[in-house]
């Protein structure tokens, strides 16, 4: 029984088509992202093995990729993964206050998931939006200019939005 849905498969096929016919492996990063999204945001060994079969690559080569890139999760994560940049430009713009506030609001530390499984708080490296620091990423979206000293309500708004309250 496959754990990868038909729609995910066809999505992966579209990626496979971008590369030369004998280079299916090129689609592995996309495939892992697609199956991760479909599996509540994390990967399992079984899923990785299926990707290996699908793309005709050794299983270990899939594990290597899945563990090399920081956006793949090999442990369960919350429904929303809040990625906080704490690198230099964000740091200079008080990302520490962003972390503090999020930790405080969510009751978890960096790297942890809330008990209700809603949020995982993750420290990440530079998100490439330095001129809008401090920045966090949730899913496909960036949230910028979050310094609580300047924009006191932004983090609360963000959390409300994620909780579906807004």
């Amino acid at each position, binding site marked *: 029984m496959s754990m990868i849905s038909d729609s995910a498969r066809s999505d992966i096929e579209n990626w496979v088509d971008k590369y030369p016919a004998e280079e299916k492996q090129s689609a592995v990063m996309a495939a892992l992202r697609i199956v991760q999204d479909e599996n509540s945001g994390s990967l399992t060994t079984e899923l990785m093995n299926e990707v290996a079969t699908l793309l005709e690559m*050794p299983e*270990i080569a899939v*594990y290597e990729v899945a563990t090399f890139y920081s956006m793949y999760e090999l442990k369960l994560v919350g429904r929303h993964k809040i990625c906080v940049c704490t690198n230099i430009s964000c740091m200079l713009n008080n990302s520490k206050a962003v972390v503090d506030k999020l930790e405080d609001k969510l009751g978890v530390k960096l790297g942890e998931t809330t008990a209700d499984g809603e949020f995982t708080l993750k420290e990440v490296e530079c998100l490439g939006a330095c001129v809008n620091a401090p920045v966090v990423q949730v899913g496909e979206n960036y949230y910028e200019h979050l310094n609580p000293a300047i924009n006191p309500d932004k983090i609360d708004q963000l959390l409300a939005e994620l909780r579906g309250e807004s």
Partner: protein
Amino acid sequence: MESSAEQNIVNIEINDISLQVEPGQMLIEVADANGVAIPRFCYHKKLSTSANCRMCLVEVEKAPKMLPACATQVMNGMKVWTKSPKAIAAQKSVMEFLLINHPLDCPVCDQGGECDLQDIAMGYGGDQTRYQERRRIVKDKDYGALVSTEMSRCIHCTRCVRFGEEVGGIAEIGGTGRGDHMEIGTYVQKSLSSELSGNIIDLCPVGALLSKPFLYSARAWELQSYLSIAPHDAVGSNIKIQTRNGKIMRVVPADNEEVNESWISDRDRFSYLGANESRVTSPMVRNSSGNLVETNWQAALDTVIKSFTEIIATDGGSAVGAIASPSSSVEEFYLLQKFMRGLGSNNIDFRLQQQDFSAGAEQSAPKLELSLQEIETQNSIFIIGSDIQREQPLLSHRVRKATLAGAVVSTINPKTIEFNFAISTSVKTDKLTPALAGVAKELLSRGLGGDLNLEQLLTDGAVNIAVEAEHKEIADSLVNGENSMVLLGALAYRDQNQSRIYSLATAISKMSNSSLNIVTEGANALGGVLAGAVPYHSAGKVEVSECGVDVAEMISNPPKGVVLFGVEADKDLAGDDSAIDSLGSGFVVAITPFMDRLTYEHADVVLPLAGFGESSGTFVNAEGRWQSFSGAVKPLGEARPGWKILRVLGSSAELQGFELDSSEQVLNEVKALCDVTADKSEPEISNWSAPTDLGNIEAEMVKPIPLYEVDAVVRRSAPLQEQAKKLTGGVDDV
């Protein structure tokens, strides 16, 4: 790029010494060839270059940075310093980086004494560490019964990873995680399934990967090494048997580019662990109440001679026979056949699993027409009836290398066989003859038959041969391949229709202008033929006046007196238990290292034979390469080398020509009878003519013998058996 043909010499200077070297080489190769020591960890001459350890940094004139010697090509006019202050400083700092996270457990590490890190650290390491943080701790992995891991010692050279991909042919080990968090391993718990996995133990420059069975049993500097030849397949891998206090402690490869390069199979490495299981350690004779009782050599030999003399006196010489292991040495084969023939019998054989002997003397010597190295240069390879990867792991590696260089491989094999190299055309069948005939017929239809007279056999004959699309593909690849080879393996050799299969394979190779290559089971089948241990000719292929009987005949119609030499009858012989009991009905002399069922239940006299590593001898490998070895340890208990036992038997029977002082003398006698040099290139079937029929065309293919079931020693090695249980894939015995 200089393209001129005369540009085949480059002038460089290493440490102010001028050298003229071949272009295209890396600095480290040139340095190695000229005795300049450059430290290294990731570089290995048999693996791709990763240039990641950075230990081999050297100073090159005009280069702004230190360059890795392993990945820097020689260029005309290049000046290199391997020990300049800058080079030494770079090497020292790399060493310091490697050591900061390496545990300080040399005193308890098995690699101690043969550790590259330890050795190089002596020369480069600082006196005291500037690193005060906690060292990295990495969880160990379970690689199965053969390789043990201490992953905190890993220095990430990736040799084991590259070995798996490039040589083992199966990517099982990788580096997961990133940066400092990277771990070398399989990620999921998993036994290594490559039949060559043990080589990573030698490749690992530190003590991260170690021999599990050898763990904590000896220190490297306590060991004595003896060069020897692995006895489990026809490659003749060169090995070093390492001993301490007269005991075999481990087996490691000996480099031989022409034979096994730097590798040995796991079978060759770990079989020694079975060498002393269920050993026979003193001569035994069956007493009147039917029990085997220990006795002395003289009494045992007397019993043999007395009984054999009686049998021959009443029934003639042909009432006795001998069956030997295909891994007996040339010396043993030779003396055994000399003994039998002295007694007036030509009943001698070692082709234990063969079923069809009808080709007889026509199959003069089963061997490779190519050298092992030449296999790598083939561009079309047709494998007929062979689980080559498990039958002959290191020959298979040459085939794999050929495929990596672009060779196409086609096979006719049972369904269950998979390989670690790409197959372009695979005929999966339970009947070998029809498929082979199809290929032959296709070649014939292309007008390639010449004067081979195959028309009657393939087109006008009683059976209608179907030519399938795959048969055409195979014919195409053989005809189109500039260097093409046909390879016949054990499943063809053991087929009920063996003689016709050989004929067809010969016809195919002649029609497609391919070399014909035969690999047999055991370590010395070719040696057995050359030494005369076959019913149809004596040593040096001198035909005998009256052909003796083959092994199958000896089983179904047992001789009154039989010598079993190194044979574990209930496992080594084709046929079921009743065959064994049948063979046991006569007077049985078992010359053997091991107690087995036939010996235990039926042998009348048991003579303890020296086991693995205990005697000198010679094997002729599949190429026809004669490789002699000496004993590494004394035979266990009362056991004696085979040549000595046979010599005494011969003289006790008052036969001529057994006054031999050494195994070298025996060997010289055989060599004088054989044209040793010619045997390197002589084609297999010399006086070939087309058979008139296709024989038993419906014959079912036999099953491959599993990797760790090939002989008595391997079957007794507990680690190999444990590993076999864990392995999946490969031969699927259902």
